[in-house]
Every structure is written in structure tokens, then in C-alpha cells.
């Protein structure tokens, strides 16, 4: 194992630049996510056209100087729609994952710390939830609440709670028995400090990775449900819905369906790269 010189917080920026050169993949991922974030917060900054207004005269134009990604069957600029779509796809995915991660982590931590009856009860509940496929459970929940963006987020979030809860529970078991928690007890720390300082951060170590995978799944799940008319309603430019629309024109105008697909793929990969890097530095395996 090589011993790397430790970098102080003061020279953090230099450290970041250095790391960018050593790990171009990470740099590319961060850059892409930054662009996605701008698209989410301020889509007008990146695109010139209205994503909703149709212009039949400009329908199905291939990618070119005026329309970088071409236009769709109604003459709307695909690039603008992809940029504006970031808001819906990312917000649905992120919100669903945040709900799942927060609720799942709390359940997992409680189960892991309390053990006994509370653990049994929580575990059985998780078993029931995960007995159904994610998408099916979300579909059932939406059939109760009715279609719409908020309900879609809620349904997707609930469906992926068990994934987070299980891992955090198992981690809590292991960490609670570890040498440093035992050692910290001998310092006379209170239970709450012990949990917050030494158990929670380590029990949560897997959550960014899971959230990454979950984000991809959530975006794809949202697309599937939107296709079934359960999510944002047209003409809202949601990536999954655009993909479903473009599917019908794949033979005559591939660009309608391909670009939202590329956006989904790149987003999932970028978040994944970032998540793994987080994980590594979180555990003290500092690189670069």
C-alpha cells in the first residue's frame, strides 16, 4: 500500500485539479452532471427553443446546425426538449431515491440498533414490501393515488425502501460490534453520540452506491410508468416519455428516441462514477 501525502483542506482546489488530471473519467462525469444540473435549474441557459411549442413545418428535421439534435414529429427542437426534460427525469429520480434512502436508512438503523422484537417487525415489513417487483408495487400504489408526478415519486420511493433498509441494518449490526465502537464506549460517550459519530456514518457507507444504482432504476422506472400514462402528462418533456414516443419513429427519425436515451445512459453512468469515488474516499481509501 502506498502512503500518499495528505492534502490539507486549504489546498483543496489544487487537490481537485490534480485529481481531475489523474482521473479524466471522474472529471467527465462531474462535467456532464454539472451540465445536467444547469439543465435542471435553468434550462433556458442551454437551449434556444421552446420545448412545448409545435412547428409542423419543421417536423422531423435531422440533426444540423440549427437543430443540434434534430426536431421531432411535431417540429419541436429535440435538444431543447432533452435539456428541459432533465428537470422532470432528474427530479423524479432524485426525489424517489431520497425518500427511499432516508426512510430506508432510518428503518435499517433502528432495526440494527434495537434488535429483538422491533428488528423482527421491521424486517417482516420489508419482506412484504420486497415480495412485489418494484415496478408492480409502484403501479399498485399509483392505482390508489392516481397518476401524476408527485404520486409517481412517492410510489417509486416506497418501492425501493427495502433495498436501503436491509443494507443499513446489516451494516449497523457489524459496526456496532466493531473494535472502534467498543473502544469509544470506554471513553464514556453517550449512546446518541456513539451512534451519530461512529455507527451512522459507517452504516450509511453503502447508501451512495445504492442511491446511484437506485437513481438509474428510478429514472427507468419513471420512464416506464410515464409510458403507461402514470407520470407527467404530455406534452411535458420527460426523458422516459420522450423515449417511448421516439420509439414509434425509430426507422424514419432515429434522433427523436436516441437522444433522450443517450441522456439517460450518460446520467446513470456519471452518477455511478461519482458514487464509487465518494464511497472510496468515505472509507478512507483516498485516491489521487
Amino acid at each position, binding site marked *: 500500500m502506498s502512503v500518499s501525502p495528505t492534502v490539507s483542506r486549504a489546498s483543496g482546489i489544487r487537490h481537485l485539479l490534480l485529481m481531475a488530471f489523474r482521473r479524466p473519467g471522474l472529471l467527465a462525469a462531474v462535467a456532464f452532471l454539472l451540465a445536467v444540473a444547469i439543465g435542471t435549474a435553468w434550462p433556458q441557459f442551454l437551449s434556444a427553443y421552446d420545448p412545448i411549442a409545435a412547428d409542423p413545418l419543421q417536423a422531423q428535421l435531422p440533426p444540423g446546425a440549427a437543430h443540434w439534435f434534430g426536431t421531432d414529429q411535431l417540429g419541436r427542437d429535440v435538444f431543447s426538449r432533452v435539456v428541459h426534460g432533465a428537470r422532470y427525469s432528474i427530479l423524479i429520480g432524485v426525489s424517489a431515491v431520497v425518500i427511499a434512502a432516508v426512510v430506508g436508512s432510518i428503518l435499517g438503523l433502528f432495526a440494527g440498533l434495537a434488535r429483538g422484537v422491533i428488528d423482527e417487525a421491521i424486517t417482516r415489513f420489508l419482506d412484504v414490501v420486497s415480495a412485489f417487483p418494484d415496478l408492480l408495487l409502484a403501479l399498485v400504489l399509483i392505482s390508489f393515488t392516481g397518476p401524476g408526478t408527485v404520486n409517481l415519486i412517492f410510489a417509486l420511493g416506497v418501492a425501493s425502501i427495502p433495498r436501503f433498509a436491509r443494507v443499513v441494518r446489516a451494516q449497523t449490526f457489524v459496526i456496532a460490534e466493531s473494535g472502534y465502537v467498543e473502544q469509544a464506549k*470506554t471513553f*464514556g460517550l453517550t449512546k446518541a453520540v456513539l451512534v451519530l459519530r461512529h455507527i451512522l456514518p459507517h452504516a450509511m457507507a453503502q447508501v451512495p452506491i445504492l442511491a446511484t444504482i437506485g437513481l438509474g432504476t428510478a429514472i427507468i422506472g419513471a420512464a416506464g410508468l410515464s409510458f403507461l400514462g402514470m407520470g407527467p402528462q404530455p406534452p411535458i418533456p420527460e426523458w422516459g416519455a420522450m423515449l417511448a414516443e421516439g420509439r414509434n419513429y425509430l426507422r424514419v427519425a432515429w434522433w427523436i428516441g436516441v437522444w433522450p436515451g443517450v441522456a439517460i445512459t450518460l446520467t446513470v453512468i456519471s452518477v455511478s462514477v461519482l458514487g464509487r469515488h465518494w464511497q472510496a474516499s468515505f472509507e478512507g481509501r483516498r485516491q489521487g
Partner: protein
Amino acid sequence: MTPLIHIRNLAIGFPKAGEPNTVVRGLDLTIHRGESVALVGESGSGKSVTARSLVGLTGTGAKLTADVFDIDGENALDFHERSWRQLRGNKIGFVLQDALVSLDPLRRISQQLSDALGDGSFFRRQDRHGESLTLLNSVGIPDPARRLTQYPHQLSGGLRQRALIATAIARGPALVIADEPTTALDATVQKQILDLLAERRRAGNTLLLISHDLAIVSRLADRVLVMRNGQVVEQGPTAEILSAPSHPYTRQLLDAIPSASSRGYRLSPAGHEARITAATTQVPATAKSAERRRLLLPPKSIDPQRKVLTVDHLFKRYGSGAASSLVVNDVSFKLAAGESLGIVGESGSGKTTVARIVLGLVAPDAGRVLIDGRPWSQLTEAQRRTHRAGIQLIAQDALSSFDPRYTVERIVGESLDSVAIFGAERKRRVLEVLDAVRLGPAFLTRHPRELSGGQRQRIAIARAFAPRPKLLVADEPVSALDVSIQAQVLDLLAELQAASGTSLLFISHDLGVVHHLTDRVVVMKEGRIVETGNVSAVFAAPRHSYTQALLEAIPTLA
């Protein structure tokens, strides 16, 4: 007759980023048939990689050069993977340190032996029951027929190590290489394995022993090569090297062995750095180990009237019903201020459970623990919390006792939470204790993974002393360390204890360490105290047969 191993000017490197990264250089090694040779040195000295080069297992990325590299008269530099495969097991058998990881956990002993006996072909495998039985008999495993049907985890540590040796000698290799074959074992089990190897040596088998422990080497080897930083610094007949070492490093290794004769003296060279100073090199090379100049440790101040720790008729049972076992059975002892008490016993003797009860991490079923004459084990955790700073723990595995996210500053500083020292004052105290364990301020920002084994244990010691405890519980604090690193850590512990007047409860399976460091000793077996008293008295004239067996098991310099 050609020697079995004949190597001239061996160099092994792991080239990385243009740098040669040489780990072994200029090594000459000749092993004749029937000889027993030992490579001695601390971790990183290149002894293991040298041994591995003899079976072609230096690993990918290794660059090996030599003027001569003959194994049984054949030039092994020309060997391809196929030739190495034919050599392994047939000509050279290899015994690794830890049998638990070296045996396949999913295969029965019979299968592992059949693998070792067979010709390595996947299809022509046959059950070699008779041969396997003979093998297990030859390594002294009782009831071999039953053992053959068992899995590695069903065997005790000693039996497992024997089974591993059986696989190494299965095809009757001309040379057996044993890489730290007893390091992970208890004293009495270690003795059994050493006896087995010694017996094989008497029977005329050739052995290459890799070890950091000169006491083991003295029992097994005809010839010793002392390695340091990839080079042989001294070599010769074992008796000569041990009684009259000419190289200062060999002397340093010999001085580092804790024993009865080292009591009250430093084990590591003087000075703030473990470096060979001019003063120690002036000692005539002919001087015997005991006559060599030793440096005194500072004297301890013991107040026999003040009992810091009173352990009173402790009982602890784990499990319930028929499966339960009494792990602590009527244990009582007292520890005075400034005194050191050793608890000695093998794994499973209950010594660690006693430590956990003293620390207030486990509640006893019956009996009580008093600290400074006041109740401790009967208190609730909330009452105990405010007094916890007074009792600190040094664990065996320092790395796992550190939160991996923390820097050294936070690791050491956290023990000051309990005495409410924060901010600039905390930083001052952290620097103070780091300085006391000879680590500079540069270590403040390090993470546990960036530290060596010795540095980690020193940080653990610094952390334990930081809140100025009156009692220190050290659970096998040096068991995972090399002899020379162990020497530094033990010196440090003794020094700090003398300076602070802290009482020390020292748990160990190593009687040499206990004899060196502690004033009184408690010998535990199966949860009971079988013998207790002054260290010198107990070890000089042990009354209980178990203590006698333990003492006999210690490998001592011949």
C-alpha cells in the same frame, strides 16, 4: 554431491513506474540435503519473497535476477510455469503461516490430502485413504480416520497446522519451506508444531525456516541467515550467531526478546530512534547476550496500600442450557497503584472476558469489580460514564480500534471527550502524548491505513494515556507485532507507566512478555485462576501442572 539449493547474487524487485523497487539484493543461499537453514528478519526484510522465489511464486510483476539459481542441479532461471508446477510439492513443499486460510474451507481433510498426494490431474483423481492415514499419523494427528472426514474449521489450530504440514510433505519433497509456521498459534500448540518439525529434522529432512523469532530458530536450525532490508547482514552456524553475533542488527534482534533476564531493562536500542548507536556497537562482539550492556528502564513507583482495581469472585456464563459454558469461574485479584498484573492463558481461557468485565463492557453474572474501592460493575452505564476516563483500553488489533474515517488527531483526541478537554488545550495534550510515543506533529493528519503496525500500536498507547487514566487494560497489545517492533512498544509502555504511575492489567499468551513486563501474574485455565503470585516466584517455581506446561512450551534461546 550437488547442493539442493544453490543461489548466487539473487536480486528480486517489483519494478514500478520506472523504479526498480528492489526488495532482495545480493543474496547467496546454499542448502545441502539434510540441512536445516533459517532466514531471520523483521517484516519487509525480504525473507518471505526469497522463500517464495524457490517455488516460483514471487508473484506477477516481480523481476528476478541471479548469477546462479540452481534447484537440485537444474537451472531454475529457465523454468517455465510447467516446470515449476512439477517442482512444487514433489521437490519442495511449502507450509504457510495460517492454516485456517491456507486450507480450503469447503473441502474435507481427506480431499485436501488426496489433492496433495495426486499428480494434479483433474480426471485421474482417486481416493488415497491409506496414504492419507499414514500421512496424518506421521504428523502426529490422533484418531486420523475421523479427522479425514472433517472440514478445516472442525479442527483446532494445532491440528489444522499439522494437516497443512501433512499436505506439504505428502509427496515426500526433498525440501520443506515453513514460512512463520507457528506465529498464529498458542504457546503449547506452538511447541507441538516445533516438536514435529524438530523430529523431521532429526530424521534427516531438509528444512528452510522463515521466522522473525530467534528463539524458534535456535531450536530448529543448523544455520541462520539474518536479513535486513533485502540483504543478508550476517550468517553462520546457529549457536555461533546466537551466542556471539557480530552484526549490531543481530544483537538488536537478540536483545529485543523479552524474557526473565530482560526484566527492568530496555529491549530496544537507546535513544529516541530505534537506531544502532555508537555506544552499543562498542560492546565486544564476543560478549554473551546477558553480559552485553543494557539500558535500565525507569523504576516504577508502586503503592501497595492503594488498590486501584479489586476483582471479587467474578462469574460469567455464555449461552444457556446444555450449550452454555462458564467462561469466567470465580476469578478474584487485586491490582495496586502503579503495579503491573499479567493475566496469562491460552485462547478460550476467559482472560479477555475478564478484561471486558473490568472495562464495564460486559456485566458479570455474579461478583463485583471495584475501582479505587468504590463500586464499578454494579453501576448503571450512565453513572459509569463520567468515570470511564480513568480506565483505558489498548486492544490487540489497533487498526480495528480506530474509526477508519478519523485522522490521528481525532482518534487520540476522542479519548479526551470524557475529561472535557476541547479546543486548543486538546490539541496541546494530543501533541504531548504523540511526542511521548515518539511520533511528531506530522502524524496529526494521517489516517489509520497510512500507518505501519508499530505506529498504530503507539497511537493506541498515546490515546490510552491521553486522559491520564489510573488503570490501563492492555489486551494482547503486542501479539501481532514483530519482535523488534514489539520491543519498542513494550519499552514505551513501561516508560509511560513508570512516568504516570498508572496501574496496568496486561493480558497475554506470551509468557516471555509477561515475565519481562509485569510484577505479578494470574494464570488462567478454562475460566479459573490456577495460580497467582509474584512473576519471578511463579515462573521460577510453578506449582500448578498447567503453569509448568506453559513454561515448558516457551521456546527459549538454546
